[in-house]
């Protein structure tokens, strides 16, 4: 997903093939087997999970920092991780020094899976984001 608003950049939601299969099983159970063999349906569902999670994370960042960030419609790809994030790394390779990594574990009854949210801000946005977070930290210390 591309980010727009006070912070621009790219947001990835990454999960392993094994965890993708776990979600497939979950969807199969929810849909009573009707969509069991349709990978596109699973991909679409995963994209929607990403859509919702991204919204929650960006709202959380807004609550902390007062920065308003929106995201575009998610695109999906099943491939090697380096290939997937390659283009973003290439475009930012000469300027962006850091990446925020949020590691999440979701437990649904006995089925757990991990997802990684990679927030890669543009260079200008990185400074804006960090300075906003530093302002909050100073506020916490002062109080």
């Amino acid at each position: 997903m591309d980010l727009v608003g006070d912070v621009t950049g790219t947001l990835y939601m990454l999960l392993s093939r094994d965890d993708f299969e776990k979600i497939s099983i979950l969807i199969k159970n929810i849909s009573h087997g009707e969509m069991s063999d349709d990978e596109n349906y699973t991909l679409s569902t995963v994209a929607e999970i990403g859509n919702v999670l991204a919204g929650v994370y960006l709202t959380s960042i807004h609550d902390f920092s007062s920065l308003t960030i929106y995201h575009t419609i998610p695109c999906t790809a099943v491939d090697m991780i380096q290939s997937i994030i390659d283009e973003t790394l290439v475009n930012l390779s000469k300027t962006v020094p850091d990446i925020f990594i949020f590691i999440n574990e979701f437990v649904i009854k006995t089925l757990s899976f991990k997802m990684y949210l990679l927030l890669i801000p543009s260079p200008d946005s990185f400074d804006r984001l960090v300075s906003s977070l530093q302002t909050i930290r100073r506020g916490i210390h002062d109080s």
Partner: protein
Amino acid sequence: MIREVHMGEGFISKSPDIIMSQGLGSCVVVTIYDSRNKIGGLAHVMLPDSKRYEPGMVPYKYADTAILYLLEGLKAGLSEKPYLIAKLVGGAQMFKKLDQTDVGIGIQNIKAIKRILQNEKIPVVGEDIGGHVGRSVEFHLEFGTLFVIKIGENPRSI
């Protein structure tokens, strides 16, 4: 010896060594091989033109400087231009963009590398480029064979 080359790196060696590079997306691997001396070089190119960016100390990162470095390295190994052949792999656009007019960095990389090789009169004898798929490569210097590996497919040689 097996040598792994990462993003923005390059390496030159001779038979029977193998040079590999993993997880290509929009990046392009360019190999140049001299079958007479069994010497070859591989560069994992990230961007098309060093003049549009700050070159820094990473010559293999840019198409123009990467090919220049490969040719200089091969020349030091006594290779001569008439015996050199090139192969290209990568240059994908991993996500299908809604905006079809958006020319990805992968296509720009491929165009730049082909233009430079044409100017240098080095023929491109094999390629596996474009699309929406990630690739890994193994460059076997005994015969200059380049194996292309994609998820869910058997490796193919070019």
